[in-house]
């Protein structure tokens, strides 16, 4: 009996780092996650907006960041810049063409630790029917138990996407050819 206990204790010690690699669901129910963007308006100011609806999962292990993964699906019809006429225009085939490309996805291919809590995430972004590799510069904000019996981890990341690279016309002027995307996500451990 003692031997079995000892063996199982040893096993769990050895396997401990692997066991902590956990799967998380992005908390869109509680809306502790957002995908916001900003683009320069005429070069004079920033225009910000967001995608209201998206889902995603990630697996993360602080001891073995390289094995982490994230996948996010964004409902492009939920584009919202707080201006109906602009939203309609951006959703039209002049830009996102959401009736044809209703979802955008990000599927990570690699995670690399580049400093204290800083991670470089590479992956394929499919937007407007075009798939391209992008790099997200992310930061782990924190992780730990929540007050309601769960466990959460949260990240913040930014990336820059060119309209032209994803097959959209640069019709907004020379200062507005790229969009800055910011992802703030909180995952609840499954």
């Amino acid at each position, binding site marked *: 009996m003692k031997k079995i206990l000892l063996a199982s204790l040893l096993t769990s010690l050895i396997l401990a780092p692997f066991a902590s690699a956990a799967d998380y669901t992005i908390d869109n129910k509680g809306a502790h996650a957002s995908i916001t963007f900003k683009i320069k308006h005429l070069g004079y100011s920033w225009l910000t907006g967001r995608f209201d609806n998206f889902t995603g999962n990630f697996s993360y292990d602080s001891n073995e960041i390289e094995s982490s993964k994230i996948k996010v699906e964004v409902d492009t019809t939920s584009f919202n810049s707080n201006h*109906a*006429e602009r*939203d*309609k225009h951006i*959703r039209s085939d002049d830009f996102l063409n959401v009736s044809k490309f209703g979802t955008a996805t990000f599927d990570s291919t690699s995670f690399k630790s580049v400093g204290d809590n800083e991670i470089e995430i590479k992956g394929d972004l499919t937007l407007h029917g075009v798939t391209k590799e992008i790099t997200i510069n992310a930061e782990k904000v924190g992780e730990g138990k929540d007050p309601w019996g769960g466990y959460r981890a949260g990240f913040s990341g930014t990336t820059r996407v060119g309209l032209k690279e994803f097959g959209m016309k640069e*019709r907004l*002027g020379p200062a507005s050819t790229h969009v800055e995307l910011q992802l703030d996500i909180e995952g609840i451990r499954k």
Partner: protein
Amino acid sequence: MKNTADSYGWLSITLHWFVAVAVIGLFFLGYWMVDLSYYDPWYNKAPDIHKSIGIVLFVIMVIRLGWKLSQIQPNPLSNYNKFERVVSHIVHLVLYLLIFVSMISGYLISTADGRGIEVFQLFSVPSIGELFANQEDLAGFVHEYIAYTIAFLVCTHIFAAFKHHLIDKDITLKRMFGRS
């Protein structure tokens, strides 16, 4: 001012031609403005004018409908055949209906985010909020296709008017200018 059994009064005539100019103007203005480039001086002005005319047209159309219902309608000319009597009546009815649908859908696009519509910078028509999901997209779809349908019906209407004037040589078109 009033209609009689065989002629339109001047108010009916004026309202008809005001609506004709506004509807045709709005169609071409709308068709042109949606493809303006972002740096075009008209990019903001053209939609503002389009919306302002639309609101004014709505008021005129309400007055026109009220006036029409309060008036007797001149009798169809005796040379009209059954087909012409029925089809012209349907086209007139559908034009009234679609012009209202078009104005309402246009209003719903611009006011989906709670912002009102500025009419020639004189006063503002308030928004009644977002009534259904994706309001600006659905209303936009309706607005666009209703506009093309109206354009088709207007062409039919004009074609018929000229047919009566040039081929049948009757007073259909003259009647709309107050002559007989």
